[in-house]
């Protein structure tokens, strides 16, 4: 099924508009993370921070034990995945081995 150029263009346009709405909150999050305290509340809002405050990241890292948080999250993720996979694999194997249609 070949699509006409116009039709393709319209599809891309719709998808791009929808895609922007998906991305905007993330861009806004990144942009705000680099703003200074007063710029956050500025109206009308700015998209690109006038002076990126990279120190925000450093500060937050000092304020909370982020290293510990990451270790905790990784531990939960690895343990959960390992637990799920071992149950899935053993369960699925048992299910297929006990199935009457199994070929020997």
């Amino acid at each position, binding site marked *: 099924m070949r699509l006409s150029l116009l039709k*393709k263009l319209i*599809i*891309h346009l719709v998808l791009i508009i*929808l895609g922007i709405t*998906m991305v905007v909150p993330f861009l*806004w999050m990144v942009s705000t993370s680099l703003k200074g305290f007063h710029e956050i509340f500025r109206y009308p809002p700015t998209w690109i921070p006038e002076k990126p405050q990279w120190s925000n990241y450093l500060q937050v890292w000092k304020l909370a034990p982020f290293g510990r948080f990451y270790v905790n999250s990784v531990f939960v993720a690895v343990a959960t995945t390992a637990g799920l996979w071992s149950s899935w694999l053993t369960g699925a194997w048992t299910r297929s081995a006990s199935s009457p249609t199994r070929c020997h």
Partner: protein
Amino acid sequence: MQETQASTALSRKRAERKRAVKRALVGYTFLTPASVIMLCFIFIPVGMAFYLSLFDWDLISPKTFVGFRNYVRIFNSRDFYIAVRNTLYFVGVQLPLDFCISLGIALLLNQKIRGLSIYRTIFFTPVVTSTVAVSAVWMWLYDPFDGLFNYLLSLIGLGPYRWLNDPKMAMLSVIIMTVWKGLGYNVVLFLAGLQNIEPSLYEAAAIDGARPFQQFRYITLPQLSPTMYFVLIMGVINSFKVFTQIDVMTPGGGPLKSTLVVVYLIYQQAFNSFRFGEASALSVLLSGFILLLTVLQRVFLEKRVHYN
């Protein structure tokens, strides 16, 4: 001669049985870890919830048996009806929106266009992000004073809206965020379903002179019905269980209890009011209702699902 034949047959039978027993043993061993975990963390707690629903209990004082009085109390409380209404509103708006938009996006993505993987990634990003983090970001976006949404809407002369602070809009605001976050998951499911449809079906239909709409109605929809059925059942279950974004974005049940949903009410009863009996009774009612809905969907929809 006959005797030896009989004995070999017998020993073969015995060996076969021994193998079967061994296989069963291996099977049960394999199932043990998962079964133990499910027993400890699903089946026993479910049983406990039902048991506790018959008691008055605040975690500290001894339990007192009250029979079905917790249920009576629930049906006599106003909050319960508010929560049920809000939950039905959430499910009734969020589910169709999510379903239709994600199906639409999947249909567009299925048109053999360039950049499919980029689009798919973009739509899937919110799904893999933590609900709490996303809720926090959306709270700024919804901010009545310097939020981005009010600014963008003011550019086209709308607003300002009070979003999460407005009893009439709070739930809708949570729904919009939920649809935004959950969309990508169903897009990927629908897309997989669409890509599994045999192209020869469309070719045959085109030769027979089927219009695009007819192709959609008589090929795409039936071929996609197993995916749609799955998305619907999981969607209903997940929608009724909504809690995280409600708790983060509108703590305390929202303005005038406008976002008080059933799971939030359960949480409040248990961990704010320490009425574990009532909370358990509510949980039993909610799971019973979800179970009923799922069974009803099976009964009425599954025969309309087209399995190849």
